[in-house]
């Protein structure tokens, strides 16, 4: 009888040892859950692009580019490639084409409206995009431009003969609005 009792004790002891071993194996891993949320919003992006016939932009492909016309005058040589000139009785105009590309994301908008404005007033010179004279308020340049491709526009600067020589610099702000 004592032998059987000891056998039972041994089996029970082994069982007690086996159970925590299984539990320990399960504790060999640890798991956590991370709930991630976001709200995708519609947006459009605008970039300036080079036009093959125009001045090469610094910062082409971005939304902040620079068009350097170089030295301009009514009758002297204009060395910068892509700058066109026309001369009238009282002023001269230099111009260059450039591209505007607008990309849409997460929106069903079919096209966009483009507007432009001067960053600050210019009491001497006149600035135009295409045929639209710019002011410090947004001027509409078109209402149904297509997304994805570069659309050519022409920037024109008209300088009166009465203007003094020197550097000219102006910021032109463009705004695309999804329709």
């Amino acid at each position, binding site marked *: 009888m004592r032998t059987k009792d000891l056998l039972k004790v041994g089996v029970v002891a082994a069982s007690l040892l086996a159970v925590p071993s299984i539990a320990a194996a399960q*504790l*060999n891993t640890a798991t956590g*859950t991370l709930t*991630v949320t976001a709200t995708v919003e519609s947006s459009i992006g605008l970039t300036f692009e080079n036009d093959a016939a125009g001045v090469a932009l610094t910062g082409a492909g971005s939304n902040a580019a620079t068009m350097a016309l170089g030295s301009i005058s009514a009758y002297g040589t204009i060395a910068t490639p892509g700058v066109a000139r026309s001369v009238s009785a009282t002023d001269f105009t230099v111009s260059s084409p450039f591209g505007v590309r607008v990309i849409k994301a997460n929106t069903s908008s079919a096209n966009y409206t483009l507007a432009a404005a001067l960053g600050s007033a210019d009491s001497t010179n006149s600035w135009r995009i295409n045929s639209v004279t710019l002011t410090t308020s947004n001027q509409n340049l078109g209402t149904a431009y297509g997304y994805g491709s570069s659309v050519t526009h022409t920037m024109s600067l008209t300088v009166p003969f009465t203007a003094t020589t020197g550097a000219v610099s102006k910021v032109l702000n463009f705004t695309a609005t999804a329709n």
Partner: protein
Amino acid sequence: MTHEESAVSRNASRYRWLSLVLGFVLFPAPAFALIITLSFESVPGSVPLTGAGTPNASLNFGSVSAFEPLNPGVNRTVGASSYTISTSVGVRVTRVVSLSPNYTLQARLQSAHPLTWQLDGVTLSTTPVTISTSQPFGSSVPHMLSFVVPYSQPAGAVTTVLEVTAIGN
């Protein structure tokens, strides 16, 4: 001691040994026993977690888009047809009882999702995938969580649940 008592004593000794051997076979601990815990941690400069320091946390990227400003701690790379949103998430795995020097981290999505989700550049699915091996215990290890949003994806809410598992090596 009688003859009968002597026989009982020999049998008892035999069964004690059997029990010990059986115990060591079934229970190789404490040499290999491992008790580890996992918690998510906020990473400075990244999106703060709700429930940081626990194994069940939440991360809210807020409003995300291809071209509009993002919340602090949210990073974005813009491609030709999609953009990727990302931030860092810390994972801390602590060993309570272990001689194991490090752990392997795995992750999966609890349910399938139309967007592509990645942890440290590893694309996640509903099947666990190894993110990293030989991770150190005790310290918060930052992992880059990102998801790719195609331009064609309709605007709206996005939710997913990541299941992250640490396995002691």
